[in-house]
């Protein structure tokens, strides 16, 4: 089976389970919104402060709810030791990696689609002119975050370290993407155009490519033996 077919098989399975239970979207979506609301209540917000604080709030919400989504997504493989069945199967390891990553990416993107307008309302941001650039930056940051998270969450299933690996190793690893995401979003909300944040876009794309390639290559060795 090709890597793509295997990825689609795993992705469709996760989608089917999620459509039935709604577990990941509800828990991580609710958590992301809670973080956004709580932080908005913590600051005295004038227009300048809003634009400075909102990117940090957005990415903190994405990061924390993302870890929650990754943990829940791999809990499905942990129950009844289904991860073992996936590893015993002839599915190519990169296919399993990409399938799980696509699922997490899709769920996080849906959460972000809800989160960004809520943050815009809470922080009185006008996204009319910037929503497409902002969405691109958030998507690029989320791809790398989901790739790294998939790798470490899968490791947790087999090594019994569970969320420990995810929290201790993931955040230092993805900090370049999170920092690039925060800074580039701050610039865009401050009026910068896509051309002006192109260096940050390059950083995010490079980071995504490295994590996707290494994730696909390391998924097999880190989940077996």
């Amino acid at each position: 089976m090709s890597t793509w077919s295997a990825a689609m098989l795993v992705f469709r399975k996760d989608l089917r389970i999620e459509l039935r239970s709604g577990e990941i979207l509800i828990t991580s979506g609710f958590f992301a919104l809670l973080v956004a609301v709580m932080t908005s209540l913590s600051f005295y917000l004038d227009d300048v402060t809003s634009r400075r604080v909102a990117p940090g709030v957005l990415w903190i919400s994405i990061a924390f709810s993302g870890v929650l989504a990754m943990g829940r997504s791999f809990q499905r493989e942990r129950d009844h030791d289904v991860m073992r069945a996936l590893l015993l199967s002839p599915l190519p390891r990169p296919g399993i990696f990409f399938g799980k990553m696509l699922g997490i990416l899709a769920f996080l993107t849906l959460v972000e689609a809800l989160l960004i307008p809520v943050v815009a309302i809470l922080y009185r941001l006008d996204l009319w002119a910037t929503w497409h650039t902002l969405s691109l930056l958030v998507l690029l940051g989320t791809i790398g975050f989901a790739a790294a998270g998939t790798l470490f969450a899968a490791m947790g299933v087999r090594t019994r370290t569970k969320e420990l690996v995810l929290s201790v190793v993931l955040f230092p690893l993805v900090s370049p993407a999170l920092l690039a995401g925060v800074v580039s979003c701050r610039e865009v909300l401050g009026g910068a155009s896509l051309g002006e944040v192109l260096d940050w876009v390059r950083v995010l794309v490079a980071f995504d490519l490295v994590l996707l390639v290494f994730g696909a290559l390391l998924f097999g060795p880190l989940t077996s033996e």
Partner: protein
Amino acid sequence: MFGPTRALSGVDLSLEAGLVTVVEGPNGSGKSTLLDILSLLSRPTRGSLHFGKFDAWRSRASLRGSLGVLAHAAMLYPDLSGRENLELFARMYRVDLKRVAEFGERFDATGFWQRPVRTYSRGQLQRVALARALVHSPRLILLDEPSTGLDVRATEQLVVAVQAERARGAIVALITHDQPLIERLADRRVRLVRGRVEQIDASSRASGQT
């Protein structure tokens, strides 16, 4: 090796096609480690493993489709139905979905397999798990305590299924403490003690004493 602990040592064992080899031994004797090695999930720190003429570890990617494993855990998605689980695994192994219906009938699972797996009794879970392990007609079948939780009827279905796989020419390794099951199925008996093969016998069944 598990850290400083040597889980298996000096194991020289061959499993043959068309025979059921029972692996026995007390808890901690290395049966689960042997199962992990045979199922290509763990690599032995020393020694080699061959599947026919192939070095099994080197050829593991292509050999995985030839393995069927039933372990302690059911290895089924709790939120999917039994049928959905079997269809998923059939797709992974590129098996015609008609075979799923056939296996549902064979393991008497069609009466409950539309329900999510998390609602199953232990016996129902084990029947669907067995169907999952066999649906792709594997050449090497590894069964770890397959009769756990099965009632008399389901145990009989298990025996018939293993006999059918043996007749098909599959290599069957059965890890169990279930003496009646051993007496009915074993062609060879291997005893592991503290990670070493202590004894290999042709069983009474194979030597025609029953």
